[in-house]
């Protein structure tokens, strides 16, 4: 159940922030939206992958992942709010002057909204129609996964990358996509979705692999840009070096990357759902900090970002947490009835 007080407090913070500085408030809300959307998108990828490969991890974790994906249609609807203020959020056409054609054929409101409706609509439909009670078919999963990758790429390229108008990174969509998978796995670990030691070990292994992948992609992106040292590319990192922003990735790496990696290396700790839950929590904190660092320092800063991001997290996080609880309860009830009838 979402607590009305949480919702009210979050909404109040958002409204206050919007009143003070609309552009900063929207960026804070976008960060919260991206973070809350993460587990749903990641879980969708994992369900589709399991449809292709099978494996006991997916059979055991399917109810949890299905609960995560149940939030996707609702969170996709939230995108309507920033969609009304795209100009304030991205500052178009500023930054597009030196890029002939980009404003006309890609970064403009009608086309952006059309792509958003298509990509988010497709993802929401996929989340709605993917079977929750059994493993998805191989054909559906294969075709679904290909279209999923296209949709998530569009979401990353549209909503997050243009926050820094002149910046391009070819690995960025992959980084965003893999980070959502990491988030879904971390949240599943935090919720103790895996109770059996063998499943917990699988979940721990997947968590480790996704963690390594995110750290690898983020570091490679940094290394290549640091090495070439081209003004328009390093500008992205330069904007994130000001003030207290550099603290975020360091904290994210230490608390959300290094510690869980070292703790989860021995097999025994991966088999213990309790340890896995704590590490899942740490990884989730790491993703939160990393995503905040990716999204919030884009463009002019200001303390208004803080209440906006906090309010957004309270509202959307509260909603997202409330939805799967209801979904899970219904699922559990159906399972109990089935057992009773048998």
């Amino acid at each position, binding site marked *: 159940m979402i607590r009305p007080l949480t919702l009210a407090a979050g909404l109040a913070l958002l409204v206050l922030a919007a009143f003070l500085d609309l552009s900063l408030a929207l960026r804070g809300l976008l960060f919260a939206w991206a973070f809350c959307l993460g587990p749903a998108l990641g879980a969708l990828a994992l369900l589709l992958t399991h449809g292709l*490969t*099978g*494996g*006991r*991890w*997916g*059979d055991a974790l399917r109810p949890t992942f299905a609960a995560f994906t149940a939030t996707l249609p609702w969170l996709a609807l939230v995108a309507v709010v920033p969609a009304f203020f795209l100009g304030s959020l991205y500052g178009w056409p500023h930054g597009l002057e*030196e*890029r*002939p*054609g*980009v404003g006309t054929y*890609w970064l403009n409101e009608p086309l952006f909204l059309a792509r958003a409706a298509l990509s988010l609509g497709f993802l929401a439909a996929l989340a709605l129609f993917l079977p929750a009670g059994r493993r998805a*078919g*191989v*054909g*559906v999963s*294969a*075709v679904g996964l*290909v279209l999923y*990758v*296209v949709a998530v*790429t569009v979401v990353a*390229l549209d909503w997050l990358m243009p926050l820094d108008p002149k910046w*391009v*990174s*070819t*690995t*960025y*969509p*992959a980084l965003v996509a893999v980070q959502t998978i990491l988030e879904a796995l971390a949240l599943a670990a935090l919720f103790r979705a895996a109770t059996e030691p063998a499943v917990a070990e*699988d979940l721990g*292994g997947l968590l480790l692999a996704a963690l*390594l992948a995110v750290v*690898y*992609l983020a570091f*490679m*992106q940094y*290394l*290549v*840009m640091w*090495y*070439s040292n*081209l003004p328009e*590319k390093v500008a992205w990192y330069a904007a994130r070096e000001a003030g207290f922003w550099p603290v975020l990735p360091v904290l994210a790496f230490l608390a959300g990357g290094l510690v869980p990696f070292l703790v989860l290396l021995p097999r025994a700790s991966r088999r213990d759902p309790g340890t896995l839950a704590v590490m899942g929590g740490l990884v989730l904190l790491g993703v939160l900090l990393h995503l905040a660092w990716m999204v919030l320092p884009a463009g002019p800063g200001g303390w208004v970002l803080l209440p906006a991001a906090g309010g957004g997290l309270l509202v959307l996080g509260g909603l997202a947490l409330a939805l799967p609880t209801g979904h899970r309860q219904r699922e559990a009830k159906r399972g109990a009835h089935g057992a009773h009838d048998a």
Partner: protein
Amino acid sequence: MSAAAASSDASSSGSPGDSGTEGHLPPFVDRRDGYASVTKEVSDAVLERRPGRLWWLLLAFGGALTLLMLVSIAWLFYAGVGIWGVNTEVVWGFAIANYVWWIGIGNAGTLISSLLLLTRQKWRSSINRFAEAMTLFAAAIAGVFPIIHLGRPYLFYWLIPYPDVMEAWPQFKSPLVWDLWAILSYLIFSLLFWYTGAIPDFATLRDRAKGRIAQLAYGSLALGWRGSAHHWARYERYYWAMAAMGVPLVVSVHSVVGLDFAASLMPGWAETVFPPYFVVGAMFSGFAMVVTLAVPIRHALGLHDLITPRHFEAMAKIMVLGATVMGWSYLIEWFAAWYSGDIYERGLVVYEFVGDYWPLYWIMLFCNVLASQVFWFRPARYSIALIFVVSILVNLGMWLERLLIVINTLSHGFLPANWQTYAPTFWDVALLLGTLGFFFTLFLLLARFVPVVSMHEMRELVREEGAGR
């Protein structure tokens, strides 16, 4: 895409986590096989069967090409890199393209072998041994190219930090130095991984060999393996740990190769996606090479019961996955070039499609992206002839890709006045063919003296599939 074809196996209930068998699909091994028949089938190919005339003919052919390789290298050392088609703009030609292609093939063996072990894909048992050998040979060949492409190859040891009176120290910020360490560590690792996996099989050969020399040779390689429960317990843990170390190592090696390009300012090269993209490309081309090798090996050594249509079906699925990821990567590359608004980046993409090397680019797109899409259809995944043909196309496509990454960018740099095209010379081609022949020769020798399929893992699979019945 065929939803109908794909949904026909939608009901398969198999999972790598359980028995590794899938409902109505044919099994990975014929369950009538016992331990003895698996051992006999594989070891007889080494111990009992005498090499036929075809083997000697092929060895002579491979040997001749190996000689061509040695002559090419000797002439290069004498005459210098001027014998190649490289010029003042296109300073990297075949040598670097070949290097990336070979190291890609070299990466795949270990990646396939260890990744499939970690994800409990039982079907790896039939292909991992020669995939690992492929890695070893290909990585060794790849390592030669960066050295010989240096203007003064005899000074390559300057890349190694050693104490000397001139206090010359390698530039640790240079990807060339990273290359050296990456390839060296990788070669050592691949050798150990391959050898460790083969120890129990060397013991089997030792016990079955009749000649004294063979007994001594295989006995030394078996390191006193007795097959005790104690041995097996230690062995399993060690092998698993090596596999877990292998995956990050493989990823790092090919990332460094990607950084050779990405750590530059050239249009089309300074891409953040290059390190992961090179890793995926390596897996893709390596898998294709495994298929290309598996078909003749299966045929020549009569291993039809051990490398079954199911194996080819699984590999076809991986190829269509790889091809789709490659297609996605190309799309991102084109989009990013346009989106950046940079005239050099945009110009390069146009040049790729309609410039001097346009036929090669279109052939590459066909081979790497389109050809494998046929495996969306189930009948195609069970046609070994088709899989073989597509695997060769992918090998060709991936080689073209590496060549085009090098020559497209260098032929179309920042200064239009300096634009030059590249054309390979006889010695470029000779060296490529020579290394192919050398690889081929090594494989022929391997098939003659070492079991190409892991006997002990196949016996394990026979037990598990039998028990699952």
